[in-house]
């Protein structure tokens, strides 16, 4: 039926989707969503290895995913505050239009 490989393939595809969002979009907020998608894909791996692991009693994967979600929330808060600050200074959140991004 559903094997560990299949779950890992789904999480790999999700990670690459997040990477594609970061690389293709030109809006800092949407790029942040892409980063969150990549983090969620990593968490999915932790949960999958916990579910299919050799030691069902061990909760290490779940605990790690819990910490990872907490850190991701902190990262989103700081990232969005930075985006607000950048918008206030330059009136744009397009990384391609920021003066610092030009060479």
């Amino acid at each position: 039926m559903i094997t560990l490989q299949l779950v890992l393939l789904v999480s790999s595809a999700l990670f690459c989707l997040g990477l594609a969002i970061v690389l293709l979009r030109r809006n800092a907020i949407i790029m942040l969503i892409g980063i969150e998608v990549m983090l969620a894909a990593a968490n999915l791996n932790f949960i999958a290895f916990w579910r299919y692991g050799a030691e069902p009693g061990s909760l290490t994967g779940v605990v790690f995913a819990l910490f990872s979600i907490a850190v991701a929330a902190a990262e989103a808060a700081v990232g969005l505050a930075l985006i607000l600050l950048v918008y206030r200074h330059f009136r744009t959140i397009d990384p391609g239009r920021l003066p610092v991004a030009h060479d």
Partner: protein
Amino acid sequence: MNLTASGLLFFAFAVLTLGAGTAVALVREPVRAALVGALCFVGVGLLYLWLGAEFLGFIQWLVYVGAVAVLIVFVILLTRREDAGGETEGGRFAGLRVLGGLGVALALFGALAAAVLGSGSLYREVPEEPMVLEIAALGRELVAGAVPPLILVGVVLTVALVGGVTLALVERKPDA
């Protein structure tokens, strides 16, 4: 390959998650992109539930859909300008950038898929007995073995939120 109802559910959740993620990359309007992003996080939570980690699934919904997605929509509304237009369409290297981004993402997926499929030890079926994540056991695990990281993560969250407020604070001029 005989599919049971549980297997069909897994495929439905995976298609929902990946489809919503693809929509984030394609939808031009930022608010809509943020909303389909929330749908993608809902799908990830459903996958957690399917894997038996109920508590994690609900936490995922609370944190990502309830907090992060709403915060993202707020920031999109705060940074919205009529004259700012959308994202930079053109530029000399726009086509090259799209091709390069897609190429990097597809190459990475190819490498990851080859690594996953090439490892025979990963060919494991899901255990027959349903696995239940006991919240009490999770709490015991946290208190027994992970107290310093738990306190640290609290400190990190506090510092991050205070730092976010400080960054976003509007500085008033003294004479105002």
